């Protein structure tokens, strides 16, 4: 990942070396550029939010599935500084795509500094966790060794003080040879001090004291220089960053031993053994998190709590958000539509324009708006689970279950949510740290049978399997689980064959009270991002469907004629054109293929479209009116050659597997890019067709 100056007052963020064809995004450059480096859960993102406020955006690193937060920090001097919140990492020897982005960012910055010298204005803020200083210092040492000027932001010192292990920032600064700024981003403290420290280091980067391990890499008992003035001029450290990423693993292991030897020296200097950073004294002083984990990580209590959290998340994204969504949809289809229609009538607008505005534009906007409550709820749940520290425990408890899919334990949350709605499930994949696991989970979610599909199953099961409808609907969920397992297996053997699922080793952060003060802003930012990016795709598709339905093909109707029968429109012609594709599956009829087209817009539209194509009102929820039932029977019987129930089963499986609704597709595109999304959609349509044809053709042999 590069962070280089284009020379025109902007900086490019991109993966790998810049050059022709490298996909980049441009940030305003007003001087310094800062990267935030730190382990996961040290408070890096909280600090980033404190410094940038709402002036931030999520950017995808090109040629990866990793995204980073990039923002602008308005200093007290009026200067605007670019800050990049890099993915959390334990070391600059990466083991995942996210960690690679961080390692490359540090490496590339070091190269630019080596080339530009004092004029580079590139700085790193390494966030250290005062409650786990030993392991944090390792990353600090690697970053210092890279040659990037560093300021240390010391977080969670209040929690360290509560457990009797507080850190003296002055003493730590002398030991590290770099400024140490205590911060408490939750309470908004430390920004001014951090600004001052960064200014000092930027003006005199050579003032940083080289680490003793620069001079004696083999020493494990190197001394720390406690009396040196951090501002004193000393020669710059050796630019050994090129060695960190290129040494073989066994050499890195030896280096790790040396670095941890230095870490032990520092800890001894700032915090003698009886004050406790080692295991023996830690065991004697159980923290509240220790006590909670004794309870929550025991199967007897932990599993019920875990299931309760999953159930609550599932309920919130279905039961609670449903009425809110219905209310918003009512608002859009009711007062808003009436108001706009009234205004257009007053202006004597042509009927096609009224239809375009109401059935295309407002319908599209209404879809986006109606999903905002759902997205707000899921963003809130993710925020609370992550911020409280409980999400890491979820990963531990679900690890065994997710092994069968080759996934991280944290994948259980999005997969379960997917059975409510695929859209928040995709959003929930952000909780998975590894980008490849995140992508694999995101590709599996569309095969979770969401509640919108349930409407289809209920109708067809009651029509074609009376008396066994419940069993049939249950069977569809079993099929969904089997498809997820099958697709996961196939992907692991093909596109993800290099994905190695390392046995789970995860740091469990301390439990904390969620930052309710930051919750509102965080959720608002995420929702606006969804509306902005997914909304464009949804609007385009909504207008596309309207266009198909509005253009006549029989020469007897005008464009946008709202009384035109469906079969007289381009939509009807398109449905008739693709119907033969489904003949091998037993449902090659234009009514059914028409419902599959609108089913792409929203799965709930399948039932409504079936009714519309037969020229009747939409059936009441959960009911199967006799007229529609008879029409469906007749249609499936004719198209299947006398096997209507089998064809209906094949149709239900097709609806389960083929492309999810357009909002899901838009969210997939936002998270993973257009190319991956197109592949996912195409693959799901092909798989759906193969399964439907297989069920029908093989089933006929036995009936």
């Amino acid at each position: 990942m590069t962070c280089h100056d284009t020379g025109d007052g902007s900086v490019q963020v991109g993966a790998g070396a810049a050059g022709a064809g490298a996909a980049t995004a441009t940030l305003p450059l007003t001087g310094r550029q800062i990267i935030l480096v730190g382990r996961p859960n040290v408070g890096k993102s909280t600090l980033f939010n404190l410094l940038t406020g709402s002036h931030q955006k999520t950017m995808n690193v090109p040629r990866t599935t990793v995204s980073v937060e990039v923002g602008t920090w308005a200093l007290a001097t009026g200067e605007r500084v670019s800050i990049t919140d890099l993915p959390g990492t334990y070391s600059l020897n990466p083991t995942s795509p996210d960690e690679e982005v961080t390692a490359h960012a540090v490496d590339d910055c070091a190269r630019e500094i080596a080339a530009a010298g004092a004029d580079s204005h590139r700085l790193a803020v390494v966030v250290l966790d005062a409650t786990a200083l030993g392991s944090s210092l390792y990353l600090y040492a690697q970053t210092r060794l890279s040659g990037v000027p560093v300021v240390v932001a010391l977080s969670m010192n209040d929690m360290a003080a509560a457990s009797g292990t507080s850190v003296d920032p002055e003493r730590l600064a002398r030991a590290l040879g770099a400024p140490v700024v205590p911060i408490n981003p939750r309470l908004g403290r430390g920004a001014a001090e951090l600004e001052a420290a960064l200014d000092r280091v930027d003006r005199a980067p050579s003032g940083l004291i080289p680490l003793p391990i620069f001079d004696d890499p083999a020493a494990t008992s190197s001394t720390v220089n406690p009396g040196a003035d951090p501002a004193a001029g000393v020669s710059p450290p050796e630019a050994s960053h090129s060695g960190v990423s290129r040494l073989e693993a066994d050499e890195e292991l030896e280096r790790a031993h040396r670095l941890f030897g230095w870490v032990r020296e520092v800890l001894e200097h700032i915090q003698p053994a009886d004050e406790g950073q080692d295991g023996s004294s830690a065991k004697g002083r159980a923290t509240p998190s220790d006590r909670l984990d004794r309870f929550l990580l025991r199967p007897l209590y932990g599993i019920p709590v875990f299931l309760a959290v999953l159930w609550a998340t599932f309920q919130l994204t279905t039961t609670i958000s449903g009425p809110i969504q219905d209310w918003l949809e009512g608002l859009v289809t009711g007062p808003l539509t009436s108001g706009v229609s009234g205004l257009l009538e007053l202006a004597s607008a042509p009927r096609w324009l009224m239809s375009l505005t109401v059935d295309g534009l407002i319908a599209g906007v209404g879809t986006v708006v109606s999903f905002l409550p759902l997205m707000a709820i899921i963003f809130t749940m993710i925020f609370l689970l992550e911020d409280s520290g409980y999400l890491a425990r979820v990963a531990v408890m679900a690890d065994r279950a997710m092994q069968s899919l080759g996934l991280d334990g944290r994948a259980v949350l999005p997969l379960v949510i997917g059975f409510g709605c695929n859209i928040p499930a995709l959003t929930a994949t952000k909780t998975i740290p590894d980008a490849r696991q995140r992508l694999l989970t995101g590709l599996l979610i569309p095969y979770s049978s969401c509640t919108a599909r349930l409407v289809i199953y209920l109708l067809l099961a009651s029509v074609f399997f009376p008396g066994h409808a419940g069993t049939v609907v249950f069977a569809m969920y079993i099929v969904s689980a089997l498809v997820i397992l099958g697709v996961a297996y196939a992907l692991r053997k093909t596109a993800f064959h290099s994905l190695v699922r390392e046995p789970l080793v995860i740091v469990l952060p301390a439990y904390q009270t969620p930052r309710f003060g930051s919750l509102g802003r965080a959720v608002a930012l995420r929702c606006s991002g969804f509306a902005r990016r997914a909304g464009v795709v949804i609007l385009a598709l909504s207008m596309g469907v309207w266009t198909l339905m509005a253009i006549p093909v029989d020469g007897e109707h005008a464009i946008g004629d709202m009384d035109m029968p469906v079969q007289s429109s381009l939509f009807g012609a398109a449905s008739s054109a693709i119907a033969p594709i489904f003949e091998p599956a037993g449902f090659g009829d234009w009514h059914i293929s028409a419902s599959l087209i609108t089913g792409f817009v929203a799965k709930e539209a399948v039932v409504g479209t079936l009714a519309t194509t037969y020229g009747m009102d939409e059936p009441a929820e959960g009911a199967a009116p006799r007229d529609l039932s008879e029409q469906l029977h007749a249609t499936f019987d004719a198209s299947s050659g006398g096997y209507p129930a089998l064809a209906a089963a094949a149709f239900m499986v097709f609806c389960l597997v083929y492309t999810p609704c357009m909002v899901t597709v838009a969210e997939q595109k936002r998270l993973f890019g257009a190319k991956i999304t197109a592949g996912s959609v195409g693959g799901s349509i092909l798989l759906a067709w193969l399964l439907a044809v297989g069920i029908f053709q093989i089933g006929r042999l036995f009936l």
Partner: protein
Amino acid sequence: MNLSNCPLDSTVTVLYVEGTPAQQLRYAEMGLLPGSTAAAILSGFGRRRVIKLGAERIAFAPEAASKVHVQLAGSARR
């Protein structure tokens, strides 16, 4: 013994970590260095283990825990 069959609520010293240098490096970078760390086993979940390394809690799946060879603190190495 290794972490996966260690008694719960005990204190151990890491002897060595099995695996390739890359795998050992991964554990080392989390602080699991041979002979230099004392960890307290907090709780288990089947053969999973959660240890306290300094002030940090680290959870291990059974396969990962079995790679970390330890001895009880204060006992002679066998």
